[in-house]
C-alpha cells in the first residue's frame, strides 16, 4: 500500500464521517476510552442500557430513554440529558447534553442536582390559598381553576377600571426570553418588574453607554489575555460555559487576570490575582488606559473609525480643530492624571503590579476578552463606571467583536420571533420607572416597599415569580411590612417550585416546575455563536416519543405542579374569555381559531418559521422542527458571527439617505423584518422620520452599533443631556465605601459573592449541594482578626447603617486586609414548619415599633421523609441572613442597588446569639431618603420632555406616547413614612 492509498483511505473515511454526521448519526462507536468526554450516541437515546448501581455486585441491566432539557439553576441554561427509566417512568439522573453548543455536554454541580429538586420531599405540589392572616402560615389546598378564575377576575376588573398599573409581575430567574413581557403587553400592562437592579444593572449601564447593547459576550476561548472583574459570573453565573472556555484559552497560553478583593474560585486559577480596595477598580482600568494611550499602544485606526470622537470634540472642545490627531492629544490629557501611582493609592495595590498588568494587556492586541457583571459593578455607587472603564480597554485595543475579543451580546444571541407579538403598552408604571431615575437600566424593583410606603400607589395583583425579595433584596423587613399590608398589596400570588421567605406572605402559592418540568426557549451569549436551547418537561417529551399524547404539562408533573407558559396562556385566556378586551387574540390558536393556543403549537410555529436552518436540519433526520428540538434540546444557528458592526449596509436598505454631521446615516427604507427579535436599542429617527440604518466610516456605510451615534460612544450625549455631563466619558467615581466616606473604625463589607454550588432560593433542598456548602462565615483577614482579638469560629457583631447581624468569623489570607466579606447565598429561614428543612433555620420574627428582629430558634436537623437521606443530615449551621440589615442604596444613574456596606465589626456582646438580626426600619427609611436626594429627576433634567431616553433598552417598552412626562407626581422623595 502506498502513501497515496493511505491518504485516499483517510479521505474516504473523512467523507463517510461527514456524510453520516450530517444525518445526525454517530460515526464512531459511542462512549469509550478514546473519547475524552464520552456520551451515549444519539441513535441510542431511545434505548440506552446501563447497569443498575444499586444491584452491585450483580449485573442488572436497566433501560433508559434519554431526553434533553436545559438547566434552570442559573441563567446560562446548560444542556441536560434526563435518564428516564423505562420501567418506572421516573428520571433517574441528569447528565450533560453533548448536543448543546453552550455547555458542550459539561455541567457544574447545579445541573445534576436538578434531581434533588425534583425529588425534594418538601416541595410544593398543589396550589395553596392563604387561610388565616397574611404570614400566619395557614393554608388550604385549592384547585387551579379556582385560583385562575380569582386571578383572572381581579386582573380583568383592573383593566376595565383603568387600573392597569396596579398589576405587577416581579421576576427573579427569567425563564423564556420575552415570554412574560409579551403576556403583559397583551394585557396592555407596563407591569414587568425584575430583579436586575439588585444584580447586573450597573454593569449593563457601563456596557450600554458604550455599545448600545447592555451585555458583553467575551470570546474567552480565543483570547490572549482575559481580564475579569470576578466574584459573580465566572464563579457562579454562566460559570460552566465560560469556565470551560477560560480554561481552554489558558491551555493555549492565555494570561488570566482577575480583579477581586476576595480570593474567588476564578482568582485561584489566575496568573495575576489583584485584590484592590473595593470601588477602586475603575481607577485601575483608567490608569491602564492612560498607559496604553501615553505609549500609543492602542489600535489607532480602530479608535479613529469606531469611536464617536468627533461628537465628543464638538460638544466638549468646540475650539479644537476636529481632527483625529487633535482628539488623540485631548485623549492623552484627559487621562494623564490616572497614573499608576494614583491608582495604587486608590486601590492599595503596588504601582509596579498595576504597570505589569498594563503591559500584559498591551500584548493582547485584538484578543482581549474582558468581563464584569456583578462584583465591583454591583457593589459600588458609580459601579457602572467599572464596566465602562473596563470596556474602554477593549475599545482602545480594537478588541471588539474580534476572535478572542468581547462582543455585544445581541450578536451572539437569537430570540425566535413567536407566533403572536402584541404591541407596546400605552401606560407607564411610575412604581417601577420613577421620574427620579430616567436613566435606570432596569426597574427600581428593590425600592417598591418604599414607594408603596411613600403613597405613590398600590398594587391590586402582585405576582412574584421564582423571586424572593424578602430574602434576596436589601431591607427585607420593609418588604414584610408591605406584603402584610393588604391596603398596599391587594393580592399576592407567589409562583414558585419551593417555599421561600416571600411565599409565606402570599395569598396564593402556585407550584411551578423545575428545569425538567417546564417549557422555555432561550439563547445566551456564551461565546461567538448563536444558538437556541429548549427546556421541556422531560416526561412529556418521553411519553410523546413513545406515542402518547400529552396536552397539559400537569399530566406528567408531580402532584399538580404546572409550568408557567401554559399557566400564562390559560390565565390570559380567562382574563378575556369573549375577546372583548382585545387581549384574547394574543393567546389564540391559529390552527383552531376560537380555542386557546397550546405550547405545542406555540413552539412548533417558532421552530418552523423563525429559526433559520432548523427545518432543513430536522427534515434531514425525518423529523418536524419541534420533534427535532424535543429530541436534541438545542440547535446552533450560526457560529463565528464576527464583527456585525463592520458589515456594509445592503443597497436595498438605502433610500433618500441623509448623514448627520458626525456620519450617522438615516434611510427611508423601513427596517426589514427579522426572525431574530433579540432586544436591541432603538436609536431615534431623524427630524424627517428617517430610520438610523448605519454609520459612514471612511466613505462606506457600515452597520455600526445601536447607539445614537452609531459608533462606540466614548462620549455619551445621553448622559450629558440628562444631567450627568461630568461622567459622560469613562470616569472614576468614588464609591460610597471610599475611605473618604468611612469613619475610622468602619470597614467595607462585600456581600455580592455566590457560593458556586448554590442557586439563591431554589437550591435549599438540593441535598448534594447543601452538603457541600451550607454556611456563610465572615471572611476576615488575619491582621484584622488579631486587631479585633477574634479567632475562626468566634461570634462577631457586624453593624450596618440600620442594624446588625451576628455571624461566625473565618480568619483567612484570602481577602484584602481592612475589608470583610460574607456570601449572600445563605441564611435561609422559616417561621413555622413549612419550608425547606435541609437549609432553612427556624426563627422568630420580632417587632417593637420600628425595631425589628430575627432570632434563631434552631438550625437544621435530620428528619424523616420519603427520602432516607434526610435522616442523614449532619449539618446544623445554615448561615446568617445579612441582607436584612442592609439599607437600600440606589445608584443615582443606573438605579442599581450598591451592595457594599460600611460596617463596624467587633466581638459579639454577651447575650448575642448566632444568626441574630436587629434592624430599625425608621433608619432604613432615612437612608432611602438620603440616597433619593442624590437623583437627578427627569422633570428637571429631561432635555425633551420625556421620561427616559427612548433609545435605551427597557425589558417591556411602552409605546412612544407613554414616554411623555406628565405633571410631577406627589412629592417624590419626601414621603410620609409609615
Amino acid at each position, binding site marked *: 500500500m502506498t502513501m497515496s492509498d493511505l*491518504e485516499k*483511505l483517510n479521505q474516504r*473515511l*473523512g467523507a*463517510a464521517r461527514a456524510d453520516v454526521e450530517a444525518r445526525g448519526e454517530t460515526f*464512531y462507536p*459511542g462512549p469509550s476510552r*478514546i473519547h475524552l468526554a464520552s456520551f451515549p450516541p444519539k441513535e441510542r437515546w431511545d434505548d440506552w442500557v446501563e447497569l443498575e448501581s444499586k444491584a452491585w455486585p450483580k449485573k442488572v441491566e436497566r433501560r433508559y430513554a434519554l431526553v434533553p432539557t436545559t438547566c434552570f439553576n442559573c441563567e446560562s441554561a446548560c444542556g441536560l440529558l434526563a435518564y428516564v427509566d423505562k420501567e418506572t417512568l421516573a428520571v433517574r439522573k441528569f447528565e450533560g447534553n453533548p448536543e448543546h453548543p453552550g455547555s458542550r455536554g459539561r455541567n457544574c454541580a447545579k445541573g445534576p442536582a436538578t434531581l434533588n429538586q425534583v425529588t425534594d420531599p418538601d416541595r410544593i405540589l398543589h396550589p395553596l390559598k392563604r387561610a388565616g392572616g397574611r404570614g400566619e402560615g395557614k393554608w388550604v389546598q385549592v384547585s387551579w381553576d379556582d385560583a385562575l378564575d380569582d386571578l383572572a377576575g381581579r386582573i380583568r376588573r383592573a383593566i376595565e377600571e383603568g387600573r392597569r398599573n396596579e398589576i405587577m409581575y416581579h421576576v427573579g430567574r427569567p425563564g423564556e426570553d420575552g415570554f412574560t413581557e409579551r403576556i403583559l403587553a397583551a394585557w396592555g400592562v407596563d407591569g414587568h418588574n425584575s430583579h436586575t437592579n439588585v444584580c447586573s444593572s450597573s454593569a449593563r449601564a457601563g456596557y450600554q453607554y458604550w455599545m448600545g447593547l447592555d451585555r458583553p459576550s467575551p470570546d474567552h476561548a480565543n483570547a490572549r489575555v482575559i481580564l475579569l472583574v470576578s466574584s459573580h459570573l465566572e464563579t457562579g453565573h454562566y460559570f460552566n460555559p465560560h469556565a470551560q472556555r477560560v480554561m481552554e484559552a489558558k491551555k*493555549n497560553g492565555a494570561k488570566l487576570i482577575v480583579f477581586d478583593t476576595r480570593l474567588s474560585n476564578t482568582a485561584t486559577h489566575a496568573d495575576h490575582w489583584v485584590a484592590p480596595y473595593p470601588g477602586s477598580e475603575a481607577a485601575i482600568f483608567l490608569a491602564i488606559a492612560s498607559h496604553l494611550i501615553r505609549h500609543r499602544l492602542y489600535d489607532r485606526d480602530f479608535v479613529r473609525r469606531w469611536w464617536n470622537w468627533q461628537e465628543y470634540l464638538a460638544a466638549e472642545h468646540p475650539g479644537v480643530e476636529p481632527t483625529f490627531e487633535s482628539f488623540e492629544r485631548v485623549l492623552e490629557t484627559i487621562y494623564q492624571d490616572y497614573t499608576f501611582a494614583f491608582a495604587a493609592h486608590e486601590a492599595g495595590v503596588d504601582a509596579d503590579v498595576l504597570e505589569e498588568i498594563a503591559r500584559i494587556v498591551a500584548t493582547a492586541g485584538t484578543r482581549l476578552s474582558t468581563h464584569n457583571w456583578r462584583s465591583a459593578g454591583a457593589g459600588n455607587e458609580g459601579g457602572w463606571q467599572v464596566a465602562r472603564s473596563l470596556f474602554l480597554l477593549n475599545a482602545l485595543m480594537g478588541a471588539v467583536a474580534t476572535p478572542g475579543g468581547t462582543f455585544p451580546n445581541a450578536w451572539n444571541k437569537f430570540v425566535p420571533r413567536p407566533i403572536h407579538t402584541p404591541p407596546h403598552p400605552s401606560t407607564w408604571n411610575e412604581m417601577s420607572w420613577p421620574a427620579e431615575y430616567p436613566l435606570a437600566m432596569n426597574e427600581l424593583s428593590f425600592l417598591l416597599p418604599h414607594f408603596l410606603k411613600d403613597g405613590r400607589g398600590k398594587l391590586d395583583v402582585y405576582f412574584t415569580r421564582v423571586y424572593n425579595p424578602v430574602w434576596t433584596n436589601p431591607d427585607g423587613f420593609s418588604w414584610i411590612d408591605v406584603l402584610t399590608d393588604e391596603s398596599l398589596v391587594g393580592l399576592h400570588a407567589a409562583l414558585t417550585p419551593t417555599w421561600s421567605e416571600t411565599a409565606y406572605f402570599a395569598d396564593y402559592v402556585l407550584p411551578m416546575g423545575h428545569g425538567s418540568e417546564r417549557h422555555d426557549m432561550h439563547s445566551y451569549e456564551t461565546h461567538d455563536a448563536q444558538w437556541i436551547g429548549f427546556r421541556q418537561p422531560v416526561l412529556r417529551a418521553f411519553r410523546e416519543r413513545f406515542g402518547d399524547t400529552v396536552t397539559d404539562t400537569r399530566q406528567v408533573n408531580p402532584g399538580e405542579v404546572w409550568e408557567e407558559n401554559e399557566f400564562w396562556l390559560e390565565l390570559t385566556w380567562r382574563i378575556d374569555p369573549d375577546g372583548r378586551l382585545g387581549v384574547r387574540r394574543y393567546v389564540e390558536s391559529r390552527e383552531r381559531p376560537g380555542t386557546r393556543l397550546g405550547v405545542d403549537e406555540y413552539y412548533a410555529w417558532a421552530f418552523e418559521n423563525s429559526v433559520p436552518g432548523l427545518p432543513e436540519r430536522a427534515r434531514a433526520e425525518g423529523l418536524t422542527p419541534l420533534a427535532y428540538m424535543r429530541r436534541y434540546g438545542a440547535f446552533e444557528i450560526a457560529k463565528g458571527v464576527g464583527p456585525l458592526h463592520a458589515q456594509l449596509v445592503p443597497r436595498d436598505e438605502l433610500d433618500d439617505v441623509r448623514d448627520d454631521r458626525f456620519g450617522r446615516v438615516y434611510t427611508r427604507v423601513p427596517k426589514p423584518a427579522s426572525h431574530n427579535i433579540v432586544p436591541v436599542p432603538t436609536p431615534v429617527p431623524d427630524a424627517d422620520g428617517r430610520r438610523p440604518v448605519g454609520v459612514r466610516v471612511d466613505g462606506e456605510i457600515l452597520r455600526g452599533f445601536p447607539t445614537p451615534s452609531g459608533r462606540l460612544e466614548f462620549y455619551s450625549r445621553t448622559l450629558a443631556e440628562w444631567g450627568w455631563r461630568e461622567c459622560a466619558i469613562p470616569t472614576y467615581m468614588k464609591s460610597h465605601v471610599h475611605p473618604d466616606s468611612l469613619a475610622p473604625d468602619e470597614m467595607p463589607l462585600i456581600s455580592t459573592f455566590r457560593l458556586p454550588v448554590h442557586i439563591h432560593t431554589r437550591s435549599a433542598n438540593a441535598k448534594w449541594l447543601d452538603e457541600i456548602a451550607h454556611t456563610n462565615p465572615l471572611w476576615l483577614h488575619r491582621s484584622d482578626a488579631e486587631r479585633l482579638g477574634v479567632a475562626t469560629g468566634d461570634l462577631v457583631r457586624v453593624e450596618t447603617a440600620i442594624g446588625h447581624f451576628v455571624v461566625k468569623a473565618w480568619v483567612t489570607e484570602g481577602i484584602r486586609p481592612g475589608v470583610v466579606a460574607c456570601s449572600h447565598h445563605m441564611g435561609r429561614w422559616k417561621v413555622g414548619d413549612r419550608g425547606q428543612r435541609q437549609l432553612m433555620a427556624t426563627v422568630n420574627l420580632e417587632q417593637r415599633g420600628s425595631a425589628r428582629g430575627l432570632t434563631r430558634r434552631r438550625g437544621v436537623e435530620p428528619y424523616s421523609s420519603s427520602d432516607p437521606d434526610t435522616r442523614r443530615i449532619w449539618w446544623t449551621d445554615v448561615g446568617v441572613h445579612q441582607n436584612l440589615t442592609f439599607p437600600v442604596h440606589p445608584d443615582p444613574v443606573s438605579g442599581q442597588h450598591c451592595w457594599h456596606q460600611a460596617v463596624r465589626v467587633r466581638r459579639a456582646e454577651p447575650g448575642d446569639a448566632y444568626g441574630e438580626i436587629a434592624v430599625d426600619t425608621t433608619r432604613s427609611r432615612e437612608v432611602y431618603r438620603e440616597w433619593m436626594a442624590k437623583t437627578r429627576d427627569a422633570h428637571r433634567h429631561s432635555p425633551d420632555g420625556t421620561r427616559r431616553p427612548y433609545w435605551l433598552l427597557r425589558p417591556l417598552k411602552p409605546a412612544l406616547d407613554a414616554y411623555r412626562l406628565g405633571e410631577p407626581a406627589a412629592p417624590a422623595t419626601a414621603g410620609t413614612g409609615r
Partner: protein
Amino acid sequence: MIELFRALATFTERPRSEHARLSRELGLPSVPTDDEYTELFVLQLYPYASVYVGAEGMLGGEARDRIAGFWRAIGDVPPKEPDHLAVLLALYARLGELERDESRPERATAWRRARIAFLHEHLLSWLPAYLDKLIEIAPPVYRAWGRLLEEALRSAARELSGTERLPLHLRDAPPLASSGGEAATNLAEAVLVPVRSGLIVTRVDLSRGARALGLGLRIGERRFALDGLLSQDREAVLGWLEGEAARWYVRHEAMREEFGDIAVFWADRAGQTRALLVRARERVLAGAATAEVSK
C-alpha cells in the same frame, strides 16, 4: 491521516454496531466479532503500552505514568487508561487535528513537535513489534487491521523524522540480566517481559511450544504455564525459548530500515536473551547450579 488513525483506534475496543460501517470503509474482510476480539485483545495481546515497555511487563507502573505525563505536558488531564492503544491512537489523531486547526504558525509548529515526540516515544517504541506478532496470530479481520495500522505507522514515521535519542521507555528499561534471584525460573519469567527480553510470548506461543515438545500445558496465566513447562523439562523448554529469541532477533532486524535505532534496540535485547538462554541451557545440561545466570 487523522481520520484513518481515529478509525483504526476504535478496533482495539469491543466491537459495536458502528464497526460494521467502519470495517466496510476500511476495506476489512469482515466485521470483528465479540469472540475474535476477546481472543485477541483480552487473552493474547493486551493492547496496553505498559505491558510492552514497562520494566515489569505488567499493566500500569512507571510506563503508564510516563504516558500520563505526556497528557499533562500538553495541558490535559490524562484519562483513566492513558496507555491503552485506542487512547494512544486517538490522541495521535487529536494532535494532528490540533495542528491542522491552529491558525497561529508558532502554535501549529508546537503541536507538530508534540506529535513527533508522541509518535516516537509512545507508539514506535513498541507497536512495530506488537503488530508483527498480532499479524502472525490474529484472525483475518484483525490481521488486515494490523497491516493497515502498520502501514499507517510506517508512513507516519517517514513523514515525521524522529529524534536522535531512543525513547525514554527503552532507555530506562533494565536489561534482562539484572533480574537477580532464582536463576532459570527468573530468567524464564523475565523472558515474558518484552522490553527486557525483546520477545513477545503469548499464550498461543506457549501452547505451540508445549505441543512441539510434547509437554502438558497447564491452564493459567503465562507465568504459571511457563513454570509448569519448565518443571516438566527444563532443558527442552530453555531450548525452545532460545529458538523463539533467535526468531525475534531476525524479526526485529528486518524492521531496522524502517524504524532504525528502535528496531536495533529490540534486536539487541532478543540477541542478548538468546545468549543468556544458551548459557542457562548449557548449565542445565552440565547439571550446574543456575544461580549465576541472572547475575
